[in-house]
């Protein structure tokens, strides 16, 4: 699928913001190799919000670690705005699932959000403004002096999001960020991500195992097969840009898309499919 087909209102750029080509990851373990990711190819245009959804154990976290430069892939390439990713790039931020283990418990909320900026030698005045704006954006301007562990899970994840936002990345990667928070908090956080995405115009790759979440959030949903992972389907989500937990989820189109993704995931669970078969089926449906 080319960039021009997938972007909606964004200007069409020749170089995709994030480009994953033939990504493969084989873990060398005692007693043989384990192929977690077989062959993944997809692009994210600038300003896109794309959800990656796949059955559990489909190598989603592995993929995200390779994209973020935290782990070296066995073969294939990841490019960020045209340049190859070999280590964690400066213009990328990652929000992890384990909020309790991604914030520094010895630092206040404010210090946590500020640290990456301090590390980049951003001047104090600018830093303060960025941190204030980020905390306000996630609705946490009232707790800067608290410690992360004094907050609820959902609020801790907000801090992690604020830290990523204050860092002003071009690409934001999120690894099942809401898997460990309760359903109501989750809905709020989903809307928060949509708002931040619209306000900042950043490119977001959101990994989840929750089908509804992927359809509700994404402008595009990439369905992964089970391990060894390939792209099973790359689906455009043609829902209105203004999304609402009640109305959007009640739309017939939402139901259709969600059932479609559900069926794809079920098919993915049945067994690994080769890319050719996927391509044929996708072509047959179109």
């Amino acid at each position, binding site marked *: 699928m080319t960039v021009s087909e997938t972007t909606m209102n964004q200007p069409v750029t020749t170089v995709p913001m994030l480009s994953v080509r033939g990504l493969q990851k084989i873990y060398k373990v005692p007693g043989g190799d384990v192929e977690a990711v077989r062959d993944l190819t997809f692009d994210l245009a600038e300003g896109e919000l794309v959800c990656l959804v796949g059955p559990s154990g489909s190598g989603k976290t592995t993929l995200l*670690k390779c994209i*973020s*430069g*935290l782990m070296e892939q066995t073969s294939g390439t990841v490019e960020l705005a045209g340049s190859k990713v070999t*280590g*964690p790039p*400066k213009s*990328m*931020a*990652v929000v*992890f699932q*384990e909020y309790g*283990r*991604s*914030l*520094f*418990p*010895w*630092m206040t909320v404010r210090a946590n959000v500020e*640290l*990456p900026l301090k*590390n*980049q030698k951003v001047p104090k005045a600018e830093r303060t403004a960025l941190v204030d704006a980020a905390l306000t954006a996630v609705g946490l301007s009232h707790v800067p002096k608290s*410690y992360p*562990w*004094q907050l609820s899970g959902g609020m801790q994840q907000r801090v992690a999001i604020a*830290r990523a936002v204050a*860092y002003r990345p071009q690409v934001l990667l999120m690894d099942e960020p809401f898997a460990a928070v309760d359903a109501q908090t989750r809905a709020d956080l989903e809307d928060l991500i949509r708002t931040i995405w619209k306000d900042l115009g950043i490119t977001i790759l959101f990994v989840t195992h929750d089908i509804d979440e992927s359809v509700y959030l994404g402008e595009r949903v990439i369905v992964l097969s089970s391990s060894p992972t390939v792209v099973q389907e790359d689906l455009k989500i043609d829902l209105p840009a203004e999304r609402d937990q009640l109305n959007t989820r009640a739309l017939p189109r939402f139901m259709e898309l969600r059932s479609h993704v559900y069926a794809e995931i079920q098919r993915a669970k049945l067994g690994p499919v080769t890319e050719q078969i996927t391509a044929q089926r996708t072509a047959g449906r179109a």
Partner: protein
Amino acid sequence: MSPLKRIAYFFGLPVLLIILWWALSFGSTNFFVPKPVELAQTLWTTWIGDRFFDDVLPSLGRLAVGLFFAIALGIVLGLLIGSTRWLRNLLEPLLEFFRAIPPPVLVPLLMLLIGVNDSMKIAVIISGAIWPVLLNTVEGVRAVDAVLSDSCRSYGIRGFARIRYFVLPAVTPQIMAGVRQSLSIGLILMVISEMFASSSGLGFTIVQFQRNFAIPEMWSGIVVLGLIGLGLALIFQFVERRVLHWYHGLKEITHDS
């Protein structure tokens, strides 16, 4: 807990024991059995005055310097060894070997190498007190959280900043556990280092009293050592509460839920 209650807990048992001790030793005429009132008097006359400046303060000074270097070296070396895999693999058997050597046996050796002076006594304290801090730091660095480590990497927090903002604070609970052990080891070695070829210091004076059958004075020296230990524990508690307030808060919350 209210301050009044805390004070009651702090002094309750000691006061009770002293009363018991006083009652049991009331009619005793045994020269070797100390009595509370006499001991308090001896404590005052023996240690307040010249001896405080000639023996107690120099001992405390050496203890402070020795502990400072033991803790600082232990942390620095521990961070270095803990974060370098090949260094850790290379040094681990050696460290276990040196740690197993009881520091008192090093005293004659250090006397030959360094001479009979303050440096030797400080070296004895360091040689014993460094191990808990060093080994705990190595262990702590090895066990830092993988997700936090990834967070640092993805935000480009490397090198010195990584140590300062991530590794050192993360290892502080283990460091403090090591320091707690080091304090008591340091106190023991302070006394032992003064028992050989020395002419001043708490250890020397107590041995001197023992040899001259100055039993009440000897007892009072032992009490002084106990009081120093208590002082160290209080300082430790004070520092620990400030440095690790986040750790205790975190623990309390994870236990609640």
